[in-house]
C-alpha cells in the first residue's frame, strides 16, 4: 500500500458563521494525481490552504509529509510546491530574476528543466513581471513550482487562464513530472476534460465533506446513464432503484443516472421490466453534472 502523503481527519473550517469544511476526511496517496472537484464555493481552495498550513481549521488534524500542516518545517516545505489560483509575483523584476530569486531559496534546483520548460512554453526570460497578463503569470507560477522538483505539487485552478495550447503543454509537462520520481499531485480545476487526461483519482467536495473519492476509472465505471424503453409501461418502483442519482421519466421511456452500476444490471432490468435498456458511458463533466447540479 502506498504511503499517505496528506491525511486530513475531522477538519472543520468556518469563516464567521459560515462553515466551509465540515468534519472533512481526506487522504492523498503517494504517486497519485488527484483532481479535486466541487461546485463554486464548496471549499476547494480552503481545503488546499488548510492542507498547506496557510489557514488553520477550527478542529481536526492535517498531516502533510508526516508533519502537522500548521507547523511545517523548512525541510517539509522544500519537498512541496504550491501554485495559487491568482499568481502574484514581483512586478519590478524580470522573469529571469524571479526564477533566480525563487531558486535561491531551495537547496536543490533543476535549472535545466526550467530552461527547457521556458523554451517549450515560449516564456521570454527578459520580460518584466509587471506587464504580464494573468495567463502568462499563471504559466510562470507553474514553472516556478517545478524547479525544485517537489514531491507534492498542489495546484489551485492552474489552467483557468491558460489558452488551449498552453493548457495542453501544461498537462503534458504535468504528466511527465507525475510519472517520474513517484511525485504526488493534487489539483483543483473546473476543466474536467483536463482532469480526465492527467488524473488517476478524483475527490469531489460537497457540503463541506468529501462526498466521493476513488480512482477516476472506478468512478466512470460506477456512474452510468441508462435509457429505458418499456412498451408495457415503466415500473412503479423505478425511482427506488438503488443508487439512483437522477431520473427523468416520460410515458414509457426513462433516462436514469445511477451510481454503483453493476455489469449485469441492464440484463436484469430488461428481464424484470420487459424493457429495452441501453447503457451510456459518461465523461467526468457529465458525471459531475448528474451528481451535483441542482
Amino acid at each position, binding site marked *: 500500500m502506498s504511503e499517505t502523503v496528506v491525511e486530513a481527519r475531522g477538519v472543520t473550517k468556518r469563516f464567521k458563521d459560515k462553515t466551509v469544511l465540515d468534519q472533512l476526511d481526506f487522504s492523498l496517496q503517494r504517486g497519485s494525481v488527484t483532481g479535486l472537484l466541487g461546485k463554486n464555493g464548496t471549499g476547494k481552495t480552503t481545503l488546499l490552504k488548510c492542507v498547506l498550513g496557510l489557514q488553520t481549521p477550527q478542529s481536526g488534524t492535517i498531516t502533510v509529509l508526516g508533519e502537522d500542516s500548521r507547523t511545517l518545517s523548512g525541510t517539509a516545505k*522544500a519537498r512541496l510546491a504550491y501554485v*495559487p489560483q491568482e499568481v502574484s509575483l514581483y512586478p519590478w523584476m524580470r522573469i529571469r530574476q524571479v526564477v533566480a*530569486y525563487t531558486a535561491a531559496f531551495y*537547496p536543490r534546483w533543476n535549472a535545466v528543466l526550467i530552461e527547457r520548460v521556458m523554451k517549450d512554453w515560449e516564456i521570454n526570460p527578459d520580460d518584466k513581471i*509587471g506587464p504580464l497578463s494573468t495567463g502568462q503569470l499563471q504559466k510562470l507560477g507553474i514553472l516556478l513550482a517545478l524547479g525544485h522538483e517537489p514531491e507534492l505539487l498542489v495546484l489551485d485552478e492552474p489552467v483557468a487562464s491558460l489558452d488551449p495550447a498552453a493548457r495542453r503543454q501544461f498537462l503534458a509537462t504535468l504528466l511527465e513530472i507525475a510519472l517520474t520520481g513517484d511525485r504526488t499531485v493534487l489539483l483543483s480545476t473546473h476543466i474536467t476534460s483536463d482532469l480526465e487526461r492527467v488524473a488517476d483519482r478524483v475527490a469531489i467536495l460537497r457540503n463541506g465533506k468529501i462526498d466521493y473519492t476513488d480512482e477516476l476509472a472506478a468512478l466512470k465505471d460506477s456512474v452510468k446513464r441508462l435509457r429505458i424503453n418499456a412498451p408495457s409501461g415503466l415500473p412503479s418502483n423505478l425511482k427506488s432503484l438503488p443508487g439512483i442519482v437522477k431520473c427523468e421519466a416520460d410515458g414509457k421511456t426513462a433516462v436514469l443516472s445511477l451510481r454503483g452500476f453493476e455489469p449485469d444490471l441492464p440484463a436484469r432490468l430488461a428481464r424484470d421490466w420487459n424493457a429495452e435498456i441501453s447503457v451510456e458511458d459518461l465523461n467526468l463533466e457529465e458525471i459531475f453534472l448528474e451528481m451535483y447540479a441542482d
Partner: protein
Amino acid sequence: MWNRLQAVAMTYFSRKLFWVFAAGYVGLPAMWFSVRERGDAASLGMSFQALFFGAYLCFILGVHLKQQFANPRAKLLPTFSAPHLLVSIAITSVATSITIWAASRHREAHWLGVMAIAVHVNFMAHRLGSSPTNSAAWVFAASVIGMTTPVGRGFVVEIGMGHEPTLAIAILVSHVCGLLLLMDDMMKLDEDSPSYQIVVNFNAWDMRAPAQRNLIRNMSQRDSGYLRLISWASHRRLDRATSCPATTSAQRVALFDLGDNWPSSIIVNQVAVAGIAILFLVLIGGRSSIRTAHELSLLMRIFLVAIMAFVWGFWFMWVQRWSRLGYESLRPVSRREWVWENGVAIFKNIALNHSIAAVLQLVIVGIVLPEFLHERSVWLVLLWSTGLQVLAFGIFALVSSYGSVILMGMVMGTLSTCLMIPGAFMPGENGLDVELILGITALGAAVGVVITCIAFRRWCRVDLP
C-alpha cells in the same frame, strides 16, 4: 433622481469604515474642545489636528469617487455622473464644514480664514485620493508639512485669525475652480485617459488589501529613466543575493527584503529627498525664530516625525504584499523563521533609514546651527524619536497582520499627526523635564517590544491568503 442620490449615498454610508472615520475625526476634536481651554497652545494644536483628520476622510472620499468613475459603468450607465458627483461634493462639503467648525473653536479663529485653510487641506486631500500622482502627493505633503513649520504655522495662524482676508478668498476661489475642474475630469474620464489608470486600487472601504495588480502593472509599464535610476541599486542587490543558494538566515533576510512590489530603493530615495528638503525647509525657514536649543528641538521633532512617517512606508510595502504572503510563507523555512526573517528585514530598513535621518539632522544642525550641537535637548529629541520608533515598529507589526492597507494608513496618519501635537509625549512648550522625557522614551520602547512579541505570535498563527 432622489432615489439615485440615495443609492449613491448608500455606497458611502453602508460602509462601517466610513463611520469609523467620521466618528474619529468628529469625535476627537469635539472631546478635546469640551475639556480644554479654547485659547491655549494645545487647542491650537488640536485645531491643526482637526484639519489633518478631515484630510484623511477627504482622501478616502476622493479614492471612492475615482473608483466609481474609473469603471466601465460610468460610461455605460445613463445619468451616472450627476448623482455620483453631487453626492461626493455634498459629503466632502459636510466633512469640510465640520472640520471648519472644529478648527475654529480656538478663541482667536476667524471663520473666513479657517474656512480657507480647511478647504485647502481637505480639497487637496480629496484631489490626491482621486488622482494620486507623484506631483499631487508632493504638493500635498509639502503643504501639510509646511504648515507645521514655524514659518508655515505662523502664516497659517495669520490666515486663520482673519488677518489675510484677500488671500483667504483667493484660496477659496481657486479650490472651487479646482473642484469644477475635477468634476469635468471625472465626466470625461475614459480608458484612453492617462488618469484612468491612476487609481488607488484598493476598495476604499475594504479592510483587506486585494491584489493591486492593475495599478502595479500600469505603474511598472512606465519605464521612465527616473524609475530605472532608483531601481538600479535594488537590481544589483537582487543579482548579488541570488548568485548562490541562501543557506543562512542572513542570506534569506536579504532575499525576503527584496520581495516587495517595488524595489526598496524607491522608499530610500523618497526618504532621502524628503529628508533633505524638509530639513532645509524647516531649519532655514525657521532659523530666524530659533533662539534656544529648546526651539531647535521642536523643529527637529517635526523633521523626525516626518521622516518616521516616510520610513513607515516599509510597512506599507509589506502590507501591499498581503495577497502573496501565503505563497511566500511556503518557502523552505518554518513559519517562525519566515516571520522572524521578514521582521528582521523590515527592522533593518527602518533602523538604517532612521539612523541616517538622525545623523543627517545632526550634520545639518552642525552646519547651520553649530552652537546648539552640544545641547542636551537636541540629543534628547533624537533619543525620544528612537524610542517612539521602537513603539511604532511594534504597532505596525501587529496592525499589518490584519492585511489592511486602509488600517495601516489610518494608524500611520493618526500616529504621525498625534506626534506632532505640541506637548504630546515629547519636549514641548509645557516644559517636560528630562526624567519625564527619558521615562516616556523608555516606556514607549518597552511597550514597543512587548507589542512586537505579541505581533510575532500572531503572525505565526494568522491565516494567510
